[in-house]
């Protein structure tokens, strides 16, 4: 566990250092707007300092005290079990809004926005087919049923507007 503990503490120290740098104006004597006020940067600066110092101590202790010999994961199987969930989740979140980049005068789309409902259908279908190993008509039923039920409950019932797909903007689908 030692390398993982030290790396985690180091990452927190790095975040603290960035926040301290951003808040370096804490030491500006005219920081506050009222007499006695410490200004906007003082509080984040010291929060970051405390975080950094605490993490240095955590890292130092991880280096100097006995640590468990086990790794961060119980084995390749448990690591893959996590990746099987984490990677599709990241792709799902990206698909909802689409993937692209923006310049000053144009937005380039690599993948168009799938919106919440299409992305959910694909995401649920992937799990049913890949991990559930369901027959294709069950996969199709899951892909259709979940977005429709969610649309009925949230969009119609609670009037929560969720992101729509490129097919909605072109008038092909109602979501």
């Amino acid at each position, binding site marked *: 566990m030692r390398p*993982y*503990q030290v790396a*985690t*503490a180091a990452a*927190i120290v790095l975040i603290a250092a960035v*926040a301290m740098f*951003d*808040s370096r104006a804490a030491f500006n004597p005219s920081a*506050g*707007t009222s*007499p*006695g*006020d*410490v*200004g*906007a*940067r003082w*509080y*984040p600066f010291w929060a*970051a300092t*405390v975080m950094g110092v*605490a*993490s240095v*101590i*955590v890292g130092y*202790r*991880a280096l100097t005290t*006995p*640590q468990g010999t086990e790794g*961060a*994961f*119980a*084995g390749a*199987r*448990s*690591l893959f*079990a*996590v990746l*099987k*969930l*984490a990677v599709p*989740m*990241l792709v799902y*979140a990206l698909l*909802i809004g689409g993937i692209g980049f923006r310049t000053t005068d144009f937005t380039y789309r690599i993948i168009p926005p799938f919106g*919440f409902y299409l992305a*959910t259908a694909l*995401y*649920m279908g*992937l*799990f*049913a087919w890949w991990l*559930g190993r369901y027959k294709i008509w069950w996969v199709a039923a*899951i892909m259709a049923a*979940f977005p429709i039920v969610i649309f009925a409950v*949230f969009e119609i019932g*609670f009037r*929560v*507007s969720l*992101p729509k797909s490129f097919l909605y903007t072109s008038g092909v689908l109602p979501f």
Partner: protein
Amino acid sequence: MEVFGQLAGGFATALQPINVAMLFIAVVLGLVIGVLPGLGGTSGVAILLPITVFIAHGSLPGSNATTAIIFLAGIYWGALFGGVITSILFNIPGEPWAVVLLFDGFPLAKRLGKPGLALASSFVSSFLGALVSTILFTFFALPIALKALEFGPAELFAVFVLSFATLIGLGAEAPMKSLAMLALGLLLAAVGFDTITGEQRLNFGQTSLLSGISFVPVTIGLFGIGEILASAEEQGIGFVENISAKLGLRDVFEAVRELRKRLRLVLSNAIIGFFFGVLPGHGATAASFLGYGLARQYSKNKENFGKGEISGIMGPQAAADSAGVASLVPMITLGIPGSPTSAVIMAGLFIWGLQPGPVLFIQHPDFVWGLIASIYVGHLLTFILCLLAVPLLAMIMRVPYAIITPFIVVISIIGSYSLNNSMLDVFITVIFGLIGYWLRKMKYPLAPLVVALVLGDSTERELRKALIAGHGSPLYFFNSGLSTVTIILAVVLVAIPLIRTIRARRRGAAPPAAAAHP
């Protein structure tokens, strides 16, 4: 007695048809959330928080902010009870506070073949624990709130510092890790506009960060996505034990007989659980372990613990449910959340346009007393539903992993998006899900992060108001006796782990927390 009059008014509010209907739905949802291993009470409440915006603003006929708080709290009561079902029947804790039931609940169900008695024992002790805690809540809340009305910025800042100190000094994890998480929460709360000067800070030029990092997407990520990733890992390792779920009237009567034999233990654990739950950041989980320790310590049958001893179920359950209810006390009376779940409920109050704290008792007595009365009604409803619906609830565990896991992710995404209609919040949820999963693996506590994130702005505001009032002098914090005593208490609490470490070193042994995880 003013309290009885107020409570009667509260019951009139809580028993309105819309409030009873929403409480029923919330308790059922809470029980389901409690049963699902990948979804906890905190994340469940956070995911459903956006829906309460519509409830609070009258989208349903007759609904208002009181309906919304009754709904959110009802989810919590359901989750408090539901989490134990899977611990006892499947050897999988549905909630962190149900972990302790693996020690005696599962053995009583499996080895001794009495799953019904194990479940009934848990439910009756939970109900009694919650009832005791709610009675204490009823009588303590108003005096605390009235006292808190006299607080100025120095006293308020001192109380915030004390709540942070309890997270460090009394936390189960290594104190330096608690401190780092606490400071991270304060730092995240500082992102965006400074509320006093209007200056931008920590947004690194990103306009989307000017309004700050929302508390709800972070909590859904840390507790919802983080938990589901952790349970996915267990799925990769795991093997699920399974016992049939049957709960008859005979089991309930037997559990009541067993409860009468242990009435002193259950009542004392409920009272201890209440005072433990009031301390910020602890809530039901820490109280459940404390309750188990006390039950074992004072038992004449210590050797039976771990083999299906009923005191090992009733002791922790009474303490956990009592602490769960008590965690709302500082939130309602002082505006300080007693647990991550009550922090989410407190975020709800802000969203509905209410200011948690003592002023609530003056400006919105219907809201406060409606909530208190609904705790009585909610627990009775939860207790009855548990007795009737255990087989149905246990069936949820049979929904395939390939459906339930992505569905929880989908619901989490809806929850984080719909609060501000923001895709940034969706990415914050996913990123904090991964961060929360990793921090949990590295034994960093998440409660200090969440509590500091929700209290960060108020803490800074009170600190700066006090400094302005004192013309920059820190001595202003020692002008009043209350703030002086509170700050001294906070220093003592932070010093506790330090003293423990020095003592352990003198004895020649590594300090327990540091040895386990630095």
